[in-house]
């Protein structure tokens, strides 16, 4: 019998003064990728996931990015947008075999965010301890019941579900939602050219903060280059995921008009500039990140930050994505 064993949600600007307003570097892909990241946090069943069902149109990057994120060959099936698409996807999951992920955004429930569900056998060994699955005696209604609960958000009880549903407990945005077209620049970038194979090569570090720890000298090097930056060794390196929150700013600058590479011209034109920081992700290991969701002056050297997946720039018909740094959510 199948059910939702885990769920995770992500809302743009959650917990920040800008809660509920999607920033210019977020799109459907970044929302769903972040929800997916929360869903898969430390999950042992990640290697087994066979199918990913996406609700609503996504940029073509999702077709290879989501399976890469899950870390195992997975098939993607797409469904129409909105709650009806979600119901269809959920119904199809009942018949599916093996663990599956359903991920959706822009569900028109007044909630501007994304949610990801892990669907699997319930009552078996893959049910996480401490989580009460849906009513076990209601076999056929298990998934529709979950969908009904989702549709009724934020009012219904959600005990037993994993994930930060509290993010959704806030007033619905008033007024029309800003439409989110995804025009992708078709031309060759005028900027320093990061060729696509090099971009893809670095994805584990760019998207998931994967670094390499040296068994010989103990240094953690970032990004992954197959070489310890401390002692130079190329063997005895093991992959480790750096924490996505809690790093501190070592250096910070604010780029004004004229200080940016040309890929970021449109961004500077609309926002006037942006911040960039070197962040000490763990003691002795640094990364360089653009800042987002923050006004000039809000962050200084020593401040603690978190990182999230955001859109960087467009090149040759494809959006490039990477992590940016932002203030910690209040209370964290």
């Amino acid at each position, binding site marked *: 019998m199948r059910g939702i064993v885990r769920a995770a949600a992500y809302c743009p600007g959650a917990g920040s003064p800008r809660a509920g307003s999607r920033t210019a570097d977020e799109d459907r892909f970044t929302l769903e990728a972040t929800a997916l990241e929360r869903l898969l946090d430390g999950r042992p069943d990640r290697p087994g996931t066979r199918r990913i069902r996406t609700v609503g149109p996504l940029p073509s990057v999702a077709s290879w990015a989501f399976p890469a994120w899950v870390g195992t060959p997975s098939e993607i099936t797409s469904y129409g947008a909105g709650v009806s698409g979600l119901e269809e996807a959920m119904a199809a999951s009942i018949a599916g075999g093996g663990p599956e992920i359903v991920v959706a955004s822009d569900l028109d429930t007044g909630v501007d965010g994304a949610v990801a569900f892990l669907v699997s056998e319930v009552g078996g060994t893959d049910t996480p301890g401490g989580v009460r699955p849906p009513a076990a005696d209601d076999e056929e209604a298990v998934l529709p019941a979950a969908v009904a609960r989702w549709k009724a958000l934020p009012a219904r009880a959600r005990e037993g579900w994993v994930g930060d549903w509290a993010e959704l407990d806030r007033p619905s945005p008033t007024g029309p939602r800003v439409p989110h077209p995804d025009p992708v620049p078709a031309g060759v970038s005028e900027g320093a050219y990061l060729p696509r194979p090099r971009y893809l090569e670095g994805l584990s570090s760019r998207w998931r903060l994967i670094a390499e720890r040296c068994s010989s000298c103990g240094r953690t090097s970032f990004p992954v280059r197959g070489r310890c930056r401390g002692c130079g060794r190329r063997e005895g390196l093991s992959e480790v995921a750096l924490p996505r929150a809690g790093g501190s700013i070592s250096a*910070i600058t604010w780029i004004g008009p004229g200080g940016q590479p*040309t890929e970021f011209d449109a961004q500077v034109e609309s926002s006037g500039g942006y911040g960039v920081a070197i962040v000490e992700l763990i003691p002795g290991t640094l990364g360089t990140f653009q800042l987002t969701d923050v006004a000039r002056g809000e962050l200084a050297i020593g401040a603690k930050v978190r990182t999230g997946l955001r859109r960087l720039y467009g090149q040759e018909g494809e959006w490039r994505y990477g992590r940016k740094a932002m203030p910690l959510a209040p209370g964290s």
Partner: protein
Amino acid sequence: MGHRAAIVGAGHTRFGVLEAGPRALLRDAVDRAFASVDQGVERGQVRAGLLATLGFGGWQIGNSSTLLAEEADIPGLPVARVENACASGGSALQVAVSAVTSGAQGLVLLAGLEKMTDVSNARRRFWLGVSGDTEWERAAGLTFAGVYGLIASRYLASNRLGREALAEVAAKNHANGALNPNAHFQKSVTREQALAAPPVADPLGLYDCCPVSDGAAALLLSSAETARKYTDTPVYVDGVGAGSDFLAVQERADLTRFEASRRAGEAALRSAGCERREVSFLEVHDCFTIAELLALEDLGFADRGRAGPMTLAGETRRDGRLPVNPDGGLKAKGHPIGATGISQAYEVFLQLRGAAGARQLPSPQRALTHNVGGAGATAAVAVYSVG
């Protein structure tokens, strides 16, 4: 110890936003270099040529060294390009020193060139970001200025300094540039103007940044033994040193020092058998005002954290204890990328021979040039004395 090589001639064009194209600039600098040789020299005596250039704008990326042979009117001259971003000139000088010291080449023509204003503003910003780490620093939205902005933020915070020391570097170098007829900027700038300038990469503002400039400079280098064939007052290159560091600033041990510069300076002074107190003046790489403060500490002329107070106290002015960048530095003289390292040696050539005109320092004996690539990825240092 003793001398390793000798500069027997040197030439320099105006630096700035110029009408002249790259070929004309090269020809001008080379002609002046040949004309400056006291006893004269036949162009055919030159055995090899080195061109220091980034190739900014992409107008001629492959085989650009051949332009040196053409514009010097030395057909068939063996030539090569040397490139280490902004340290191209200083690095080329070291290759030339090796060539003449080993006896492989008797007389070498060395030129640095950059034509930066041919291309649009947008393409300039593209090329200003090519010498940092492309994959990571660039993708985070950094050009050259942004990386130095990060370094400056950390330096000022660690040393509890405001921007005044940076503004003083700008004011000093502009005052020096006003006495240099080749300088890009020949007007003075006050500390207040520097502090009030619009931000480019906070805490760096417009007057903390060197300009985008066209220009060329050239040297004729011989072995120390044969120098007197060409002049009674050669300027000897007594020692050279170089170094490098991780391309991406985030991977380095310390955000407020350039290890590449420290290594290069240590090696150059040691190979020249020169104590720091013997050095009469410095030509350092002030692509941004913060870079001059770092240079003083990296080269050991100021203790860690003391470059700011030293500068504010006037010690590095032309009339100070240790003049730094008497020609205006990159800040005021300009920074045609490949030409800068050669331009620094040109200033040494003039100053040590008493030919620096209005900006002449009183009887300098030994000098040091310091040339850095990008944000400290490479560095080349040389130490000189006069014959």
